């Protein structure tokens, strides 16, 4: 029983990192129906920005986190402007191939020596790890931090999307671009904001991933990116609470499979869960046919 609880805590930690990435997939998909395959690499860049902020510039952790988020927001916005905007009216397949190209570019370009370099790097811990024992359970201050920051960011996102004018405009654009323009909404501006917010969340995810699983390298975004994408689809792509739910499930399935079956099976089982859900509910767990988006 204690072992199970321990695994659930680990699953929550992993799931909350996946959620931060999955939200970016779902936000962008909701607005421009693009699966931004470079999103996992923005997560990786976030991890590195946090790494340099902590280790090289000696910034305190909260400042490093904000630095990584802002840096990723800028990178996400630039990617959209340079790579996706020229293809706004192109067939979807062209956009998907471009997204894959951007992803490969970011992974290989950042692997160059003068940038992040090709090696694994140990992530600096912003403070000493403290383990709290509750009965036979062990929770570390890092786990609590990861979880609390992820939840906090998700609450902020929810407030932004539901309570601010720009958030309302995002939901309107996700539903109907022409009518949104009749309200005076500049679609390009909303797309920019969406990439910025989604990338900032991925950047935060990168930093949290770094301090929780303390090792980074330029290809580290591939698997978490894929898992987070699966999480977004699982919950119903384009739907914010769906991304959070899907990510929680993915994190949990992965950790529990490693604990009770075999760690080599964890990816296979995670994808199996996706297949089963999509067979039963093709629009994802919270998907309502095709109307409600974001």
């Amino acid at each position, binding site marked *: 029983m204690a072992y199970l609880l321990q695994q659930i805590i680990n699953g929550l930690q992993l799931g909350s990192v996946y959620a931060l990435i999955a939200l970016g997939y779902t936000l962008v998909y909701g607005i421009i129906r693009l699966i931004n395959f470079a999103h996992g690499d923005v997560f990786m860049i976030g991890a590195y920005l946090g790494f340099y902020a902590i280790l090289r510039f000696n910034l305190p952790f909260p400042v490093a986190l904000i630095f990584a988020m802002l840096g990723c927001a800028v990178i996400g916005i630039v990617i959209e402007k340079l790579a996706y905007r020229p293809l706004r009216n192109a067939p979807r397949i062209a956009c998907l191939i471009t997204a894959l190209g951007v992803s490969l570019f970011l992974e290989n370009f950042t692997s160059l020596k003068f940038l992040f370099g090709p090696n694994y790097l140990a992530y600096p811990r912003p403070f000493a790890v403290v383990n709290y024992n509750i009965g036979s359970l062990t929770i570390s201050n890092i786990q609590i931090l990861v979880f609390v920051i992820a939840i906090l960011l998700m609450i902020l996102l929810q407030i932004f999307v539901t309570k601010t004018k720009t958030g309302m*405009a995002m939901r309107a654009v996700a539903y109907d671009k022409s009518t949104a323009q009749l309200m005076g909404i500049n679609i390009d501006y909303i797309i920019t904001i969406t990439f910025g917010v989604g990338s900032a969340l991925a950047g935060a995810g990168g930093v949290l991933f770094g301090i929780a699983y303390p090792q980074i390298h330029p290809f580290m975004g591939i698997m978490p990116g894929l898992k987070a994408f699966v999480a977004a689809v699982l919950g119903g792509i384009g739907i914010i609470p769906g991304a959070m739910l899907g990510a929680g499930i993915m994190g949990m399935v992965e950790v529990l499979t490693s604990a009770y079956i075999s760690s080599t099976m964890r990816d296979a089982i995670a994808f199996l869960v996706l297949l089963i859900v999509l067979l039963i509910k093709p629009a994802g767990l919270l998907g309502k046919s095709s109307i409600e988006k974001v």
Partner: protein
Amino acid sequence: MWLKIENLSVSYGMIKALNNISFELKQGEIVTLIGANGAGKTTVLNTISGLIKPNQGTIIFNQKNILNFAAHKIAGLGIAHVPEGRKPFPNLSVYENLRLGAYLSNDKDFITQGLSKVFKSFPRLHERIKQPAGTLSGGELQMLAMARGLVSQPNLLMLDEPSMGLSPILVNEIFNIIKDINSSGTSILLVEQNANMALNIASRAYVLETGKITLEGNACDLLNDPRVKSAYLGE
């Protein structure tokens, strides 16, 4: 002239939807554009509001040629377009739909004033302010669409078939509200298939047939024109 459309031609690929049409609207008027399904009425409104770019022509509004303005800029000039089929944002509440109607404003007093004006015209919306727009009835959706256009207190309101799919009682109610909106100073460009209702509230009218304007004149003259009577008034 306040709104002046000249030699406007629009195509969808190979399909010519508008062929060299010209018409105008003076400030304060209700002008109606009537025509059968597929005549090109919606295309006219979409071109004025910038959603469609024409092959040729000029659109002068307030002395400015707005032909090459982006759609969101045109909304900012005080032109509100209530689209065909109402096009609510069904996933947003009634309030949020209305707030987006005044998206370009950050002035609290201005928005409150706009909201209180539209609730005076459409008290039923006030009762449903928190409801998702997707749960409204057809008549309420038309009211929401008009209210959303009006919160920004536009100078020109363009309505695309507001009577579509509504019962005769509701159509009457909507048209009375259109008259009220006009008498409080908003100019109206009204697109309708319901020629009888439209000609009764408009001052001037244009008849659109397969992309061309075939008749124009004072609304009361057109109401008595035998060609209009046989083609559009079912007499």
